């Protein structure tokens, strides 16, 4: 029996036919192409890059960007459903798609020149190029405005120097969107984005080893040493820290949906196991303790679904705020962590095996909880929104 999603509140009725078709198509793709390999990839610590052409052909890369650039031109609810379905498979695969779409294609679309858009977007949508997003630095995680990477203007272009860390897709990327200060170290307004082909001299990426989470995803450190770029490498419409933060809002929006996919995968597995596994002469699903676990999971998943659906409608209407995204990312990822943990426990000893999915999701979600604004930072963003007083 293949995966069954959760729709306890008949939210399907609030989706359009196209939105449901997109979700069902990506779900079928994940069943067919990702599920058979994900366990081995996770154990081997390998991103399944052989799936990139398939993802591109399906049209998931930058799916909410316009058709004129070779993208699918979907609305944001359909885009969210794609993220949900990919993360039902694995957070690492969803991370790949998030980075390519929301952190590389989105800034090129939002801040790039016509030439940059025409050159890069179709190639990224088609999977001919793989992108990464260089914002975080070893000493500047939650506080990216403090970055020390510099871009110095010369008479014929730019020279970049600095180090970026925790960069998804970093080592396999063919192009990087790098954020750097063009002015003094304390000049936050001078932060600009640059399109950097990774074959440029002085660019070096190396994978971060020893990860116990997101093992089917590449995470890298990027070193930029006198990386010389032409004048037109700069994203002309970027200006200040709000430019990269707006990209993060896009990615966090997708994560809020994606987390539901991971949670549903764990719930689905837990329900099946609870019905099948017999102990003391009856299925463990007939015991109160497991029923409470499952009821809690179903409730939290359903609440999370209501959150993102309305968030998506707001985004499509153009009135979504970053704080609303913070609330959804914070709630839904935390919810997914809880579901994965409870599912893993319900599965008993089997729950630690890779042939089941809950512990893989649990381990992945610890990263998702921490990246794209930690859970705690989103609490503080909401705190500031509520009180008007920044605690960071």
């Amino acid at each position: 029996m293949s995966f069954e999603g959760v729709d306890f509140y008949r939210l399907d009725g609030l989706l359009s036919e196209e939105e449901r078709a997109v979700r069902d198509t990506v779900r079928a793709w994940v069943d067919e192409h990702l599920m058979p390999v994900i366990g081995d990839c996770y154990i081997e610590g390998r991103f399944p890059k052989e799936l990139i052409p398939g993802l591109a052909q399906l049209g998931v890369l930058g799916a909410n960007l316009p058709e004129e650039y070779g993208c699918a031109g979907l609305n944001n609810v359909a885009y969210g459903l794609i993220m949900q379905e990919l993360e039902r498979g694995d957070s690492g695969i969803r991370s790949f798609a998030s980075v390519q779409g929301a952190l590389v294609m989105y800034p090129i679309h939002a801040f790039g020149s016509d030439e940059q858009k025409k050159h890069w977007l179709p190639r990224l949508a088609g999977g001919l190029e793989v992108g990464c997003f260089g914002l975080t630095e070893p000493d500047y995680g939650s506080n990216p405005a403090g970055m020390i990477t510099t871009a110095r203007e010369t008479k014929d272009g730019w020279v970049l120097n600095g180090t970026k860390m925790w960069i998804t897709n970093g080592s396999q990327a063919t192009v990087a969107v790098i954020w750097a200060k063009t002015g003094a170290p304390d000049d936050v307004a001078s932060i600009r984005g640059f399109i950097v082909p990774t074959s440029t001299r002085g660019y070096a990426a190396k994978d971060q080893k020893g990860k116990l989470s997101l093992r089917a995803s590449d995470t890298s450190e990027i070193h930029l040493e006198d990386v010389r770029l032409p004048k037109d490498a700069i994203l002309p419409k970027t200006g200040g820290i709000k430019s990269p933060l707006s990209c993060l809002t896009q990615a966090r929006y997708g994560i809020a949906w994606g987390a539901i996919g991971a949670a549903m995968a764990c719930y689905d597995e837990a329900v099946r196991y609870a019905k099948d596994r017999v102990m003391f002469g009856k299925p463990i699903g007939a015991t109160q303790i497991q029923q409470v676990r499952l009821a809690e999971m179903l409730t939290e998943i359903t609440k999370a679904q209501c959150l993102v659906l309305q968030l998506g409608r707001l985004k499509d209407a153009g009135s979504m705020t970053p704080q609303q995204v913070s609330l959804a990312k914070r709630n839904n990822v935390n919810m997914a962590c809880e579901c994965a943990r409870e599912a893993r426990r319900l599965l008993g000893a089997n729950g630690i095996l890779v042939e089941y999915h809950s512990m893989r999701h649990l381990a992945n979600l610890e990263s998702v909880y921490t990246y794209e604004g930690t859970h705690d930072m989103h609490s503080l963003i909401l705190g500031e929104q509520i009180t008007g007083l920044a605690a960071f």
Partner: protein
Amino acid sequence: MKIAVCLKRVPDTESRFTIAPDRVSVDTAGLKFDMSDFDGYALELALRLNEQQGGGPGEIVVLSLGPEGTQETLRKALSMGADRGIHLACEVVPFDGLAIAEALAAELGAGGQNYDLILMGRNATDTGNATVGPMTAAILGWPCVTAVSWLELKEGKGTAHRELEGFTETVEFRLPALLTIDEGIARPRLPSLKGIMAAKKKPVDSRPAALGEPRVTVQAMELPPERTGGRIVGEGPEAVPELARLLRDEAKVL
């Protein structure tokens, strides 16, 4: 080539069925629906035939008969690459294959249609009658080949394979023809997301189905009895005679 593919919208085969209070139909509340499996193979075959033609003039028309929701199945076919859809509207799909065949033949055989090929699944995954294809062909007076597992078309003629129990049959026929398609001929593709968006812009005409008078009706529907537990007749070689006796006298399978 102008190809018509007839699609039936059926409950997803992974659904758990319950019988409706009328005792003659399946309760559709909460059921998921999709294109019948064999019809998916027929559609994929049509798409490949026209792709192989290399952009020559060709059209794939998908037809489906049923209630409003049937249009969703047609749009799925359009998102996979069919060119336009025809929805033959009726409240309930009759059980009688002849009643359906009469409606399909009235549409497909109408003047000026000039189809080269009509494809449909070997049988519907819900009713499993396998009658609509041959009956439609009979009304049209067209050659019909059922359960096609391989196909080649050349100069107005076709060669098809049929996988039968223990052997393969090769048959030849002239076009236009109606073929029913077996599994395995061509695994249906997933629609692309762009295809899903493009399908919104493709035309779907809806008109009332000219259904024939049903001559066969369902009188009762029952779920299969719950399976009872197995029985252990003994252990080791000593149990064999007793097992053989039971298989012969009780189960009557030997």
